[in-house]
């Protein structure tokens, strides 16, 4: 094999290793890219995890939207968790209040964190919460039962074709997460 071929081999080897290295970085870059895309579009149904200010409070009474509430606990978390009402009809721009009921069935103190998810995903950015128990972790004493409020508004920019919005909460055991 001539010198030229050896040079060529080294060059191609460098190029292929560059692709392998580049793709290894790319896969980790996908994580923030995915997060950014979802923040911009709400594609994955995630809502803002902080209180949002409501400026315009004039409801659009010509339109009604059904909001459904779901509540579940993660894996084997020994809590009861359910919405006080399963669904309500709202006008876009109208501020509404509802609440969820949770009970710690164990005999020890537990800390839970509720994670919201909105379906369809495109409605997520238009579902605004001014107060929510999901903003902070919730500490429950042994056997404690508590009603937790949620104040929300579906904004008027909700795409026309969406008539039902589902808000699902999953309670996670915070302690288990840390362990």
């Amino acid at each position: 094999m001539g010198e030229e071929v050896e040079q060529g081999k080294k060059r191609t080897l460098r190029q292929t290793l560059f692709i392998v290295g580049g793709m290894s970085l790319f896969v980790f870059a996908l994580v923030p890219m995915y997060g950014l895309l979802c923040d911009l579009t709400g594609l994955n149904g995630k809502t803002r995890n902080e209180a949002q200010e409501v400026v315009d409070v004039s409801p659009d009474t010509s339109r009604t939207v059904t909001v459904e509430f779901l509540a579940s606990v993660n894996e084997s978390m020994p809590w009861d968790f359910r919405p006080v009402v399963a669904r309500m009809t709202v006008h876009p721009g109208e501020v509404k209040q509802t609440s969820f009921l949770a009970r710690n069935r164990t005999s020890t103190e537990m800390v839970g964190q509720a994670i919201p998810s909105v379906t369809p995903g495109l409605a997520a950015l238009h579902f605004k919460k001014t107060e929510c128990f999901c903003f902070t972790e919730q500490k429950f004493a042994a056997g404690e039962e508590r009603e937790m409020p949620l104040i929300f508004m579906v904004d008027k920019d909700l795409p026309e074709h969406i008539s039902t919005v589902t808000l699902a909460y999953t309670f996670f055991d915070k302690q288990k997460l840390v362990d």
Partner: protein
Amino acid sequence: MSTATTHDAHHEEHPSGLMRWVTTTNHKDIGTLYLLFSLLMFLVGGAMAMVIRAELFEPGLQFVEPQFFNSMTTMHALIMIFGAVMPAFVCLANWLIPMMIGAPDMALPRMNNWSFWILPFAFAILLSTLFMEGGAPAGGWTMYPPLVMQTGNAFPFLIFSVHLMGISSIMGAINVIVTIVNMRAPGMTMMKMPLFVWTWLITAYLLIATMPVLAGAVTMLLTDRFFDTSFFNAAGGGDPVMFQHIFWFFGHPEVYILILQAFGIVSQIIPTFARKPLFGYSSMVYATASIAFLSFIVWAHHMFTVGMPLTGELFFMYATMLIAVPTGVKVFNWVSTMWRGAMTFETPMLFAIGFVIMFTIGGFSGLMLAMAPVDFQYHDTYFVVAHFHYVLVTGAVFAIMGATYYWLPKWTGHMYNEKLGKLHFWLSTISVNVLFFPQHFLGLAGMPRRIPDYSVQFAGFNEISSIGGFAFGLTQLLFVYIVFKTIKGGEKATDQVWEGAHGLEWTLPSPPPYHSFSTAPEVK
């Protein structure tokens, strides 16, 4: 003359016994190792498939626990994909690429040795999980979180074995690229390369681009489980759906990694037995490249049901259907090559024609699955199982078997038993259709994948499918017998082996000398 002989004899020298195989850097030895390894894994994965079909023979739980059943489906997939089909193609690359392009060996022989010897360790790790507390991985080969997080002690072993398999394939792919780009004989221009070499070159690029993605995804699973990260954990702000996106960004090119070389093999075999040059050579090259490109922009068709906006569904649906165009070009070219050819039907040709027909059936069911609105019915049913077994068993595996019959006389210097070869083909073809065709109906009727028990209305077709499965499994023992019998002896093969065979590998003696093309041949 005498100096030439001693020179040759010197070249034949290599350590004997076990150390020859452990330390070898010879592309032919490594090709043989890959072939035997993949045959072994094919039998191990096949045995798991037999457990699956035995359990599904009738409704109810007969032989195994549901957890173990799910381990069987998961392990069967991992072993067949990474242990049987991919190493079989690397075997063919090692044996054939240097001989086809007139190179003395692969470009990076030591890395070649390493890329093979990692594999037995990777699969020893994977198979050892069968004996661990909590059982072998049972969450499906796609390793979706959060389900995969429930894997017991086997979890880190699963991740590390996937890492090792990835490293092995990346090294194999780099070797293929460096060899093809730099070591072609004078006159062997890119557009003169045999199509098998072309398809491997394109596949090798797919491999180096996607294997790091899989490695990254499983690394994130590992850190989620052990180091408190939350890439895919919703409670910590992550998103399990993101895993599906990353996984299938690797996974869809991966399915072409498992089939493009099969296209190359069939494009070598059909012209030989039709005694005509391949119809539309350059369109074959461009079609392969187009499929490779499209494979990067269709991943979400594996996850139509996760809740995508309509525009997303439409984009991935149309992009997926677009792949049927270059694939159709290929099928058209194979048929046109056979058209008015002086055809004979030796075993490799039978497998190649079987490939063209049955791969096309699998392609059509793929088109059905590509349609977003109907996919909601087919998703995760036996229809999907039928689809990918048609493209992978009657597609990839049939092409590999055809390739084995086609080149085995060249490698060993012995002809295989043609009668037994044909018997193997016909038994395989009949049983594989009895095995997988009824699964289309099961899927359309709503039978889900990955379940050990099912409701009684599915009993009839499952019974037929299982009978086909056992027959197909037994038939493969005949294949093993034929391969080993041919290695040991048989009628002497000529250099050209097949009357209509063209290409550099057929100019070498059968079997080829340990070191071939030490001086590059001139290609006109």
